[in-house]
């Protein structure tokens, strides 16, 4: 019970701080918005054009329609992956020490930060979704599908945020964390079907993406946007992300406890 209360208080405190830094919230969405505006133009010819030559997607599916789910996942990726930077700042300014010198439950310090990140990610995903809808994206599964998509995105956010915070507690320096996160996020992004359908990817990449949690999220969200409720894909996405999320939260908690030594 104490752990739940402490997590709630820490989540609220974190959210209050973030809301008072609106520039930070906007900047973390800037790249996905830019990609959403530019990429459909750059890769216009990839879109299915009902029999026209050159299209790689099924008929009636524009590149915007194909790419939009990937952008929603990208928003989660960038916001969550760098959430550990705040933890390092808290360490450097003594805020973390202050929290640890209180009866607050240790796991709640990690969970509170991670949950606050997920809340922000979901808010950002909703904003991106609205932009995508305005640009003409159609969601086949409607409101129900949107809720499931947000759940998948939130789960990915939780996974990556826990990982980022665990790495922050381990590495303890902003420059090192930034370099490490970049080392992970860029390959994860490109070793997936975020930008291109699986049919045009080389065989080795189609093998590798099965080990990429980002791709499970993209597949699940894309199905909900384009194809409907493909439960086989959805259950698999939820299961894989769920397991990795638990592992990452455990990792972050372990790093947190080790820090006390």
């Amino acid at each position, binding site marked *: 019970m104490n752990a739940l*209360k402490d997590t709630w208080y820490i989540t609220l405190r974190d959210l209050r701080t973030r809301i008072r830094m609106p520039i930070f919230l906007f900047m973390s969405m800037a790249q996905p918005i830019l990609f959403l505006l530019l990429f459909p133009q750059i890769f216009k010819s990839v879109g299915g054009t009902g029999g026209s030559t050159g299209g790689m997607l099924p008929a009636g599916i524009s590149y915007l329609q194909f790419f939009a789910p990937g952008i929603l996942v990208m928003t989660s990726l960038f916001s969550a992956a760098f959430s550990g930077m705040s933890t390092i700042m808290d360490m450097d300014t003594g805020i973390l020490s202050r929290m640890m010198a209180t009866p607050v439950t240790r796991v709640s310090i990690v969970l509170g930060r991670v949950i606050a990140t997920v809340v922000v990610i979901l808010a950002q995903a909703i904003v991106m979704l609205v932009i995508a809808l305005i640009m003409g994206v159609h969601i086949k599964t409607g409101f129900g599908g949107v809720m499931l998509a947000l759940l998948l995105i939130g789960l990915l956010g939780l996974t990556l945020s826990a990982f980022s915070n665990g790495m922050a507690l381990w590495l303890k320096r902003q420059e090192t964390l930034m370099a490490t996160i970049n080392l992970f996020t860029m390959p994860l992004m490109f070793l997936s079907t975020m930008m291109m359908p699986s049919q045009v990817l080389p065989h080795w990449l189609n093998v590798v993406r099965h080990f990429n949690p980002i791709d499970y999220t993209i597949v699940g969200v894309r199905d909900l946007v384009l194809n409907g409720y493909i439960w086989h894909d959805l259950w698999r996405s939820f299961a894989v992300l769920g397991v990795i999320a638990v592992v990452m939260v455990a990792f972050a908690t372990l790093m947190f406890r080790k820090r006390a030594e």
Partner: protein
Amino acid sequence: MEYAIQTKKLVKRYGRGFTALDGISLNIKRGEVVGYLGPNGAGKTTTIKILTKLIKPTAGRAYINGVDVTRPSKEVLSKVGSLIEVPGIYEYLTPIEMLTYFGRVYRIDKKVLDRRIKKTLSLVKLSDCEHKKIGSFSTGMQRRLAIAKAILHRPEILLLDEPVLGLDPRGIKDVREMIQHFQSEGMTVFLSSHLLGEVAEVCNSVIFIDKGKVVESADMKDITARLETKAISVEFSRPLSKEEVARIQAVKSVSNAEVSDNTLLISFEGGLHTSYQILRDLTGMDLEIVSYNPERMGFEDYYLSLVGNERGVK
């Protein structure tokens, strides 16, 4: 006897063979205000971090109210308030918001929390700024807010690591008065500081630490008695002749007499009693004495005689 704070042969080693604490044993009674003095790198902050469960000792034990702090239970921290190193400010929160958050973490009842926050902010003289963002505060205000956070839950024990660091004289005076107020309320205060004058003003007893070991531990009254008079400055109504100076140098226990215009600085061997004897001898010489000032060893000199250079300085 159960002490408020107790450590038994506390050892802390870091990688590559650096020993921060080398068998520290402390016994601090309830209600005492104890100063913990030592040069940079002596182990003061390390000791306080162990007592607040931020780090674990390599060996030895540490107790707060008889409870071993190295055990997993965090509830012992509900009796402890602390200010450790950098204040750790929440730039985008107001004092009310920050203290509300900590009040909840310390499980202070909602019904009393608002009133307690107001009272605490009043004590640290931050009532006028309760709704301003902490990021706009000066160093002194941040320190006072950090102290507010440390005492919000009315702890029995207060651990302060360099509480006056970075403060101007006004800020130092405010913190001194706060510590005296906490003492009057029966709190046990354990504070580390470099400002010897402040420690001498507020502490009942002092522990000197150097290179991870306790060098000296004594009540302030005993230390004050030990700051022996070693010289007397005597001003006469007229400059003394060479013969008169020679007569004074011949007095028993006088080791040296330096002349400066009408003033004579007399160095001697012995304590306060010896200086009284010298005064009696001087008045017996029929010399017109205008003023007589025993010069005592300062607390700083005493501190420097006990602790050496900072660690890392050859």
